[in-house]
């Protein structure tokens, strides 16, 4: 029988797209290049060493873990992405064993223990980061200024008004390797949104929620504003909280992870708004200056519940019909 006339009997899905896991992961890695380059440019070659150590450890751990699980190791790029994301949310001063331990923990416990790619509940890179932050709090909070590497605190720890908004936007502030430059992240994020790899709703609602709530809950509240000058201050503080810390990196690259966030559009909006509320809560009344990692991990835990309540429309049923049978 000639090729092409064969009757293929296979389980669904029958229609397959050309997009593969490897393709998506490569696109996200490409989108992270601006943030990675800006991090290396700002914080020097040690940042590059941290990134390489983290990626090698992530891939190596995945290789060993899959071998132990008796599965075939596929170089689909997801481990590379996890390693890269972890390195980008570490301080540039960390000793090299920390990205290695963090990436190994994130991949082994955060991903492979749950069954590998597609089965993990929590974002592996953030699992690694939070483990490092809980284990070595002192080493994870040694911040330096860009270029001259003088010890300092992050803008969020120092509070609103400590750095010009423009410096925050381009990334000329202390912070994690890949999180400081909102501009570089925005370039990569815009690419992903334009290519339709990520849903624009997530970053918009996540960052928007933080900005909106900070209008009311910051040091300058819109409710107390009497004249134009104080209104400008309120706006500036809201912008400060949107650009400072890891919010942009988290919103574009971690809250949009396919595996650990809801499947439906409405579900993603709920996820993003919830994470935004958590960030504001942690920053204003919590014990940490920054809460992006925790907010995304907590909402990761809610993802199965959100997906249970908000189900995708079953093909053929009426629009607006919730449940779908």
């Amino acid at each position, binding site marked *: 029988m000639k090729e092409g006339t064969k009757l293929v009997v296979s389980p669904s899905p029958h229609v397959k797209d050309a997009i593969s896991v490897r393709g998506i992961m490569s696109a996200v890695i490409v989108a992270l290049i601006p943030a990675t380059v800006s991090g290396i440019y700002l914080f020097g070659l040690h940042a590059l060493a941290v990134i390489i150590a983290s990626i090698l450890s992530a891939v190596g751990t995945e290789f060993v873990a899959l071998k132990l699980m008796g599965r075939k190791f596929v170089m689909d790029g997801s481990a590379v992405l996890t390693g890269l994301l972890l390195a980008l949310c570490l301080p540039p001063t960390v000793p090299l064993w920390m990205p290695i331990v963090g990436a190994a923990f994130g991949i082994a416990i955060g991903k492979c223990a749950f069954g590998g790619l597609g089965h993990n509940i929590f974002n592996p890179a953030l699992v690694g980061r939070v483990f490092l932050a*809980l284990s*070595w709090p002192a080493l994870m909070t040694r911040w330096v200024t860009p270029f001259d590497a003088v010890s300092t605190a992050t803008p969020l720890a120092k509070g609103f008004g400590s750095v010009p908004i423009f410096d925050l936007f381009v990334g000329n502030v202390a912070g994690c390797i890949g999180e400081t430059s909102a501009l570089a992240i925005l370039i990569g994020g815009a690419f992903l949104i334009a290519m339709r790899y990520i849903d624009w709703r997530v970053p918009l609602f996540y960052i928007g929620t933080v900005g909106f709530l900070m209008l009311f809950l910051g040091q300058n509240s819109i409710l107390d504003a009497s004249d134009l000058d104080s209104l400008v201050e309120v706006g500036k503080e809201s912008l400060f909280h949107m650009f400072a810390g890891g919010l942009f990196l988290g919103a574009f690259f971690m809250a949009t992870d396919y595996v650990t966030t809801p499947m439906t559009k409405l579900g993603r909006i709920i996820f993003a708004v919830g994470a935004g509320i958590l960030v504001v809560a942690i920053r204003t009344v919590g014990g940490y200056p920054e809460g992006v990692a925790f907010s995304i991990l907590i909402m990761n835990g809610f993802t199965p519940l959100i997906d249970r309540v908000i189900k995708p429309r079953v093909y053929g049923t009426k629009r607006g019909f919730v449940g779908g049978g």
Partner: protein
Amino acid sequence: MRIQEFTKGIIKRNAVFSLALGLCPTLAVTIMVENALGMAFAVTFVLVLSNLIVSVIKGFVPPDVRIPCFIVVIASLVTVIEFIMRAYSPTLAEHLGIFLPLITVNCLILGRAEAFASRRPVADSILDSLGMSVGFGLALIMVSAIRELLGSGKIVIFGHEIVPTVLSSPAVAMTLAPGAFLTIGILLAIMRRFRVI
């Protein structure tokens, strides 16, 4: 009277890893090996004596009120061991804190009383409780040794440095609650993988 009643509780039907009983103290006090030893001692005392007493009185206890009767026996024994610990080792009692009186509601102890001692002869009950205690103690020591080594970098028992500093910057997370869940989970996975239990 069979010797298997003793040996089964050590590995094959280990309280923590196989029966998943007594997890609360396993999670809470295994920050240091010292605490684990204290808890293992206290649980052994209560478990052996409560199994003995429950097995002896099983003929007189009306079935409808058996659980309250067992609890009275266990709670009395816990009070005794608590007073002994406070008198002879106040620092250890302080470390164990609320988890010392909470032995009263440890499911391992009530579980053995209900499932074993209340329907078996006295000798079997004692052997069973001894085996269960050894198994529980081994599990506590195993978990706490891993947590203290990784979380504090060294193991110190009653002032003696058993393992000198091996980690200069230990992982503090291992001494927090997540560290306990991680350690027990990983140990359980390894044991299931190699069919130890």
